[in-house]
């Protein structure tokens, strides 16, 4: 399957399929409704066009209840869609985040106009950050006095993930609202300054995917791109190791990233 085309992009996360199912189902129903409706509409326009000697037939209010039948059908379809599909799937994707003990953890601190990807390192703990430490060489303001920060890895615009394992991304922003969009994962979530929003994803395919920003964030909004690199667990571990020591200080300065 082609990664990008005229339809939905490649699907590469555990829940992408259930989102796609909804999109396909709704479009099939939409087209069905529109075609049936369109045929009826055209039929009425032709049959009841003005003809000499034929005057309009008033219905005197009869059939009003009957004409609500299409509405009732639409309503029933919507109720079923909500109860069977929307609420359960929404809960699975947005509410039931996997327990953080079993998941891989990453934090993303968005800024104008790059994605700072923050890995906790071998200790599994994110170091403290403080705006007062923000510097060209320390884009998210990691506090290196905090022991948990010593092994942290910060890289701009490159999100590495292991395949087949849930990853929780703690999303926030340092300046304005951005939105993390990874089309192949069908993942989208706003990054709001002052809020830490957890989103999760289990990648199902190895490959390189795209991060784009979906919320207007200023001048370079359209250029705020990143890459997602999904690797096997072994490759991912090896990559983490290679980045491990002092990569925070050596990471790509965000302002040069795009």
């Amino acid at each position, binding site marked *: 399957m082609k*990664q*990008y085309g*005229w339809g*939905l992009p490649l699907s590469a996360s555990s829940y992408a399929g259930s989102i796609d199912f*909804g*999109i396909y189902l*709704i*479009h099939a129903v*939409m087209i069905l409704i*529109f075609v049936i*409706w*369109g045929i009826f*509409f055209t039929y*009425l*326009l032709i049959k*009841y*066009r*003005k*003809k000499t000697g034929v005057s*309009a*037939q*008033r*219905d005197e209010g009869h*059939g*009003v209840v009957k*004409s*609500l039948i*299409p509405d009732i059908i*639409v*309503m029933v379809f*919507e109720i079923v869609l*909500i109860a069977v599909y929307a*609420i359960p799937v*929404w809960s699975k994707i*947005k*509410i039931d985040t996997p327990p953080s003990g079993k998941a891989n953890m990453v934090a993303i601190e968005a800024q*104008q106009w790059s994605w700072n990807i923050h890995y906790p390192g071998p200790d599994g703990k994110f170091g403290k950050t*403080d*705006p*007062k430490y923000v510097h060209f060489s320390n884009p998210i*303001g990691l506090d290196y006095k905090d022991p948990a920060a010593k092994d942290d890895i910060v890289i701009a615009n490159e999100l590495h993930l292991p395949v087949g394992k849930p990853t929780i991304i703690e999303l926030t922003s*340092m*300046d*304005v*609202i951005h*939105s993390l969009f990874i*089309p192949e994962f*069908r993942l*989208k979530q706003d990054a*709001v300054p*002052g*809020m830490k*929003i957890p989103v999760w994803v289990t990648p199902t395919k190895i490959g390189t995917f795209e991060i*784009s920003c*979906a919320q*207007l964030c200023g*001048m370079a*909004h*359209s250029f705020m791109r990143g890459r997602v690199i999904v690797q096997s667990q072994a490759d991912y571990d090896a990559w983490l190791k290679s980045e491990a020591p002092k990569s925070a200080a050596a990471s790509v300065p965000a*302002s040069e990233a795009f």
Partner: protein
Amino acid sequence: MAHEHQDSQTRKSFYHYFFSTDHKVIGLLYIVTALVFLLCGFMLMLVMRWQLAFPGSPIPFLGRILSPSLAPNGVMTPDFYNALGAMHGTIMVFLGIVPLGVGGFGNYVLPLQIGAEDMAFPRLNLASYWFFLLGGLLMLSSFILPGGAAQSGWTSYPPLSIINPGQTVWLVAMVMLITSSLLGAINFLVTSFNLRAQGMKLSRLPIFVWAQIVTAFLLLLAFPPLEAASVLQLMDRIAHTSFYLPQGLVILGMRHIASGGGQPLLWQHLFWFLAHPEVYVLLLPAMGIVSEIIANNTRKPIHGYNVIVGSMIAIGILAFVVWAHHMFISGMSAVLSDFFLVTTMIISVPSVAILTSFVFSLRGGSIRFTTPMLFALAFLPMFGIGGLTGLPLGLTVTDIYLHDTYYIIGHFHYIVVPGSLLALMGGVYYWFPKWFGRKMDDTLGKWHFWTSLICMNGVFFPMFIQGLAGQDRRYYDPMAALHSVPTQPLHVVSSAFAGLLFLAQLPFIYNFFHSISHGEKADDNPWQATTLDWACPSPPPHGNFTKPIRVYHGPYEYSPAGHKTDWLPQNEEVLA
């Protein structure tokens, strides 16, 4: 007396037009001003469409005139693109469609249809127009003021809107426009409930009037929160408060001076609390116009008058509890989203009921395909497409993927442009004979209709395909994201149709101004209509009606049994 009347007729000065308290003069002022603003907003979009079709290439003609700060070497800058986008949205919604549908048609037609001499507060009415005009001119002039035009989208989400230039003028202009709408809304409500002619019971009101009443309630109740929200945002900008700014912001490597404690989502809640009802403000007057035109041109009463009116009222109430479906992925509680999902699906029920009633109104009719009727009929399938494509956006799960893509742009443009705007244009053709005592040219009108309909679909339909491919909205360079590259040719298609759509409006502009003085003469009731707006001279004199008005029937007594003609005016008594 006669001499005096003639005298005032001949001396139609600037003062007469711009300071008249006559609802008809104010209504026409609104209509012409709004149409001019619509054209301005459309031209901004044409410039943007060039960049979208051919990213990074110099804009033809205009590129040479624009200042290098906006378009160096004729290529627009990202900031200028963002400014055009923000202003396009703002102008089309707040300066175009709403003033046209409410200020324009509402002002002119509503008092006539209820048999009133004027609005309840004629001077307030004039004040409302002047707030609108000054707010609009201020908004437009922001392009040449220091800091330029606002560039944070018509939604103006903080913190971006607080750190971006140009936003202060936007906020001040918005406060003026909101004030204008509030004055208008109060006036419409008082007029509709107190100045009805004898016998004009609520159950005899034309659907257009009902639509205006519901619209006025929406404006009156939804705008004040945005007015307050705008003032708070203004304070964040000029007085360094932080209603919308959290602690510890770092802007481009610099710590922001705001003390913090604010919440960016607060603005989104307040904004959408207005802006979702605003969608129905864009839509309801159009539906009102469609009702009038369909009843008149099918020559039978509208099917399900009570269903339509009840649905409009239901929409008016539900419109206040659906706003956060714009915020499913904003970071708002995911549990709260389920509530707004349910209310959003509920509000589709009355909308479908209205659409179904319109369609069933055609059954048994004797359909005259006049120019206004073509516009009203096209509203039905176009609103249908707009409504149906709202389904995957209103559904939380599918919205995750489609949110903020071109899909949503296609969706709301279908509602507003080939939906509302077509219906409003139909309204222009329908009431033009009332305004000027002359008809607009029918052939030009039909050309205008078919070319506009085709071009509008050509502009907006490709956006659904782009949206499904994941193309993000508000992108200066649509080719910057890899997933948008395959559908780039569709941008060229959209842009080409946008250019043609502009050309398609030229016959309308010519037809409008030419017909004012040269159109075919029309009598008082050229469409053989039943409502009271056709029971007065064309154009109506000051005070509207030349004889006392008393209402005996419902609004759409077409083809009544045993009557000599196929229409029975509301004010005509049938003696048994």
